[in-house]
Structures are given as structure tokens and as C-alpha cells.
């Protein structure tokens, strides 16, 4: 899965959590808790659903890296690269 697909996945999951927003229009470096008004349940759902879609487990200590779209894409891309094809 390349970076483009990862980004698309992240945006898709975010749209499910914040359906009245347009995550594609959000500044990729901005904190999603402010931009999309995500609370702790939303954040946990985000990493749970992304993890399920990609077949990986995102440990709680890494969760802070998924607070921006850019951070999420970087983290996930490198996780996927290190676990093989």
C-alpha cells in the first residue's frame, strides 16, 4: 500500500468518525482534535479502525503520532514498510 492509499484510508476513516466534516479540506499538519473536534473516544476509534483495516495493532504509546493527518500517514507508511509487502 503506497502513501496515496494510506492517506485515502485515513481520510475515509476520519469521514466515518466526523461525517459532517470534510477531512480532505483539513490542513494536514493541524491537530485533528481541534480541526475536527475529536474527543478521546474518537481518537481511540480512529486508531482501532485504521488498525483493523491495515491488519496492524497501533499501541497506545504511538497514538499521539496520529493526531495530524500528516503524522498518521507518515507513521502508517513506515509501519507497513517494516512489516513487509
Amino acid at each position: 500500500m503506497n502513501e496515496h492509499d494510506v492517506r485515502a484510508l485515513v481520510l475515509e476513516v476520519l469521514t466515518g468518525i466526523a461525517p459532517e466534516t470534510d477531512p480532505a479540506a483539513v490542513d494536514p499538519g493541524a491537530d485533528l482534535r481541534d480541526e475536527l473536534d475529536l474527543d478521546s473516544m474518537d481518537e481511540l476509534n480512529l486508531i482501532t479502525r485504521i488498525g483493523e483495516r491495515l491488519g496492524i495493532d497501533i499501541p497506545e504509546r504511538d497514538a499521539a503520532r496520529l493526531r495530524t493527518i500528516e503524522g498518521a500517514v507518515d507513521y502508517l507508511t513506515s509501519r507497513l514498510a517494516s512489516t513487509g509487502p
Partner: protein
Amino acid sequence: MPALGAGMESGRVLEWHVRAGDVVHRGEIIALVETDKANIEVEVFEDGVVEELLVPEGAKVPVGTVLARLTSTPEARTAAPQAPDRAPAPLPPPTATSEPAAVVSDVAVHSRVVSPLVRRLAGQRGIDVTHLAGTGPGGVVTRHDVEAAATDRATSVRTVLAAPEAPRTVRAAGRASPYARRLAAEHGLDPAALTGSGPDGAVVARDVLAAKVTPASVEGSAEAMRQAIARAMERSNREIPHYHLGETVDVDATLAWLEESNAQRPANARLLPAVLVLKATALALRDHPDLNGHWIDGAFRPVAGVHLGVAINLRRGGLLAPAIRHADERSLDDLMGALRDLVERTRSGGLLGSEIADATFTVSNLGDRGAESLQGLITPPQVGYLGVGRITPRPWAVDSTVVVRRTVYLGLAADHRASDGHRGGRFLSAIISHLTRPETL
């Protein structure tokens, strides 16, 4: 007309989904009712035949008004009417209660003896007393019968906040209810193009809403909800003598315990810190029953179970606080699952009205982007409210040194008619004691 939440005084019947002569079954939706907070689908809670619809579409009536009559069997419908007790006048709207009510049917029964006191209590609970089976001598309807009916959850109201579930597939016969037509016009839809799920395949509001939810309709309902919350808060501020107590709590060890626990769990089994606060509060309420109940009619009514209301923000604005029932008896995993389910159903529609009215106490969590402290307003008829501020690192004195600990401010608001500062302080201490020993939660 059922009562739902503090501040509801009347409702408008938008659509009837049945007509006289229809056979209805327990759980079937028979009408769509508009309140300020939401549109509510009203279910009938027994089998029967619709005898008469008493309130026309579009009419707004006070809470407690009888909306329709059912008879229990088709044969009963043709029998001669029984005693005069079968014909109640519209009941006075409940004043100080937000108990779930919603008896919308009147079954052909024998005459009932009901004392004025019991009749008044029934009116306040929004219960049609002629429906009740009396357990007193000679079939007399007693206060106990009314109270039991008030907590009877056989009748539920389904709140429709967003697009409801898909309509049954019935070919549209070209008819649409007036309300559905208005909604369709607002959304720029042609009702003739929609599949109808109402009587005879008529297009009803839910069909329009399932087809499209536009920002216009969403803003309208968000505004109505704001108004309803405003009224409830006005009433809270006006009627409840609040006192406030608060304490900053060192939760560093608690959070460390949670992190260690979560590190060994997959994401879908992790616990949020909020769940620890909920369990700690529920356990404290079990031991402090004078904060677990409702102030109604000048007296405190303790409730046997701890049904903890959790304030949940709606994404488009507004707030609901449905209850997790028997929260003190649930494991942390169970509470997390219940919380997740409540958040999902609150935001997508599908809450039962009784889940909101059942709450015996409310906890509100500002979350990690919120303020340090929250001193909120109690939702009547509850007598307590806990505001949880943001988890914040603070300098903390330990022996004669200063360290940094993660802390949280717990703010208790309580009704001074039901408790005083001393009792409230003991209760708050109990919450803190439980919260700082997470292995016992």
C-alpha cells in the same frame, strides 16, 4: 403525549402511521411526534386495534394528552362501551418530573376506582390511569401501580436525530403525508420519487430523511435542541439551589495503571480514563444513596439502581446525557462497551427516551481539550452532577518536596434540598478514594 426530558411541555403530532381500524402489534410505530429536541417515533406497547385517533396531524398538545384509543381485541371494539372511567380528560402536564411516560392507548377495561391523589400522581408521571391494572383491594389502582408503570420500560420512544434506518420496501402509491411533503420541498426532493413506508405505501417523514439530510434541516433541528437545552438549564438554575464542591486529584498512579493495562490490550479492548471516573462515581453513589435519585414534588425519591448519565456531545451541537444502567455493577470492560454504544447511538440516532429519563446522576467530562474545571448545572430532577476537567500536569507536594503529577479537577454540583456540603464532601471523597485505587474498580 409522552414526556421526554426536563423542559418538554408539549409535542406536535406530525404524522399518524396508522388509521382507525388498523390492527397494531406491540412495538409497532404508530406516530411521529415533534418535540423541541428531536422527532420521536412513538411505539404502541400492546397488540390491539386502533379505535380512534384523538389528535389530528399537525396539532400540538400538552404532555399527558391522550393521543389515541386502542381496543384490546377486534371483538371488544364492537362491544358496548364500559364504565365512564374509560374516557379520561386530557391529563395535566407533568410539572416537576421527566419520567418516561407514553401511554398512548386506552384499552377497553372495566371501571377502575382511582383516588384523586393517585390520579394526580399519574398525571404527573404522564400515565393514563385508565390503562393500569389495579392491585389494591377490589381492583383499586394504587400509588404503587402508578410508580411501577412509570418505570415500566415496555413502552419506549425512539429518538430520531439524524437519518433513521431504511424504510421497509413498499411501492409508493403516490401519497405523502403533509409533513413529508413539506420536508421534501425543503430538501428539493420529489416525494413521488421516494419509496413510502407509511400506511398504504404513503411517503412519510422518515422516507424523506432517509433519502437526504441537508445542512438546512440539520441546522433547524440543532437550533431547536439548543432551545430545549436552554429551557432545561433555565429551569435548573431557577429551581435547584446548587452548591459546589471541588477537589484536585493526583491521578498519576491511576493513569500509569491504565497505561500498563492498555499496553497489553488490542486497541478495541482498551479503556478510556473516563471509564475509570464513571465506575468510581457509580460505586460512590451506591454508598451515598442521598445523591442517587430524583427531587420530585418537594421530596427526594431515591432510586434503587445507579443509572449514571453520561454527557455526550452531539457533533452538530447540543448535548444529551443518556444513562448507563446499573453502572456500579458493571466491569470496566462492560462500561467501556456501554459507553462506546451510547456515543454511537447518541450521535447517529437510536437512543430510547427512557435512557435519558432514567439517569439518577450525571457525569460530564470535558476531555483533553477542555478547561481545567467544570462547574455545571444539574439536570432536573436529578440532584447531583460531576464535572471532570482536563488531565493536567501540576506541581504537587509530596512530603517536603515538590514533584509533577498528572491531576484532574473533580467538581461536584449538588441540590442543597437533597444534601448538604458535609454529605456532598463525603461523597466526593468516596469518588476520589475509588478513583485512586484503580485495581479495585
